[in-house]
């Protein structure tokens, strides 16, 4: 018996159980719920096609998260180029939900690594080790980056949530 059917079943399990979180992180990165759905589907199409090339370095779930995040990052990057060429195309982050423009603006100013660590920590609920695996950085770097992101968020917290 080959490992191939097991790998496909593992992908299916992760997809079914983590789908809402994949969607959430993707939406946070690309800023659009519908695009986020396409991102998740596209990521899993890639994962299915490339599953035989998985070398077993790290966990399957870490590999899956990394593919989803990188697919979303690529889509965001392409969209940014498109917006630069056509300023009339604006991101549609609302999708019927109330979105705090101040928060969005602040998040947009954060370095990409800080944004991703925040999204993976709060939206995906991943621990430091898992985040490190997904972003291919050291666990200690995750903590430091998260602290930096928290510091940046404090400015907004003072304005948005007066204590």
């Amino acid at each position, binding site marked *: 018996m080959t490992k191939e059917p097991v790998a*496909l079943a593992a992908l299916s399990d992760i997809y079914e159980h983590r789908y809402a979180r994949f969607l959430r992180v993707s939406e946070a990165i690309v800023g659009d719920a519908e695009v986020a759905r396409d991102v998740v589907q596209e990521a899993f*199409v890639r994962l299915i096609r490339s599953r035989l090339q998985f070398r077993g370095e790290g966990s399957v779930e870490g590999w899956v998260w990394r593919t989803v995040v990188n697919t979303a990052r690529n889509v965001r990057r392409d969209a940014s180029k498109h917006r630069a060429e056509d300023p009339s195309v604006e991101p549609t982050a609302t999708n019927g939900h109330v979105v705090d423009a101040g928060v969005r603006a602040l998040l947009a100013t954060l370095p990409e690594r800080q944004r991703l660590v925040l999204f993976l920590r709060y939206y995906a609920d991943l621990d430091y080790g898992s985040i490190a695996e997904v972003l291919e950085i050291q666990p200690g770097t995750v903590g430091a980056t998260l602290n930096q992101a928290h510091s940046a968020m404090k400015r907004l*917290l003072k304005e948005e949530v007066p204590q």
Partner: protein
Amino acid sequence: MTDHDVTDYDPRVNEILERQVPLRLDAQPDWAGALRKAEDGITARPADWGSGLRYACEADAYSRLHSSSPYSSSLGQRPALVSGAAHRRQRSIRLRRPASSSTH
């Protein structure tokens, strides 16, 4: 999750991020669609590609056509668990039906 992680989890940050992107628990996953798209884009398949994926797609289509099938409840979620034997059984059922209707 470690104690260190919990310490660095800021509920106020969580509250603000929560407003940004809600968790969409009602979102419907489409594993079968991802499988179909993955197969559609492949021109040169590895030797073992068809052993699980093609069976899974055919079985999924079968389950949608025959909702009373004993396979219908789980195939869409766990297509890789469709064994070759199960596939052959489904295939034989499909092939037998037109033959039996034409003999009567």
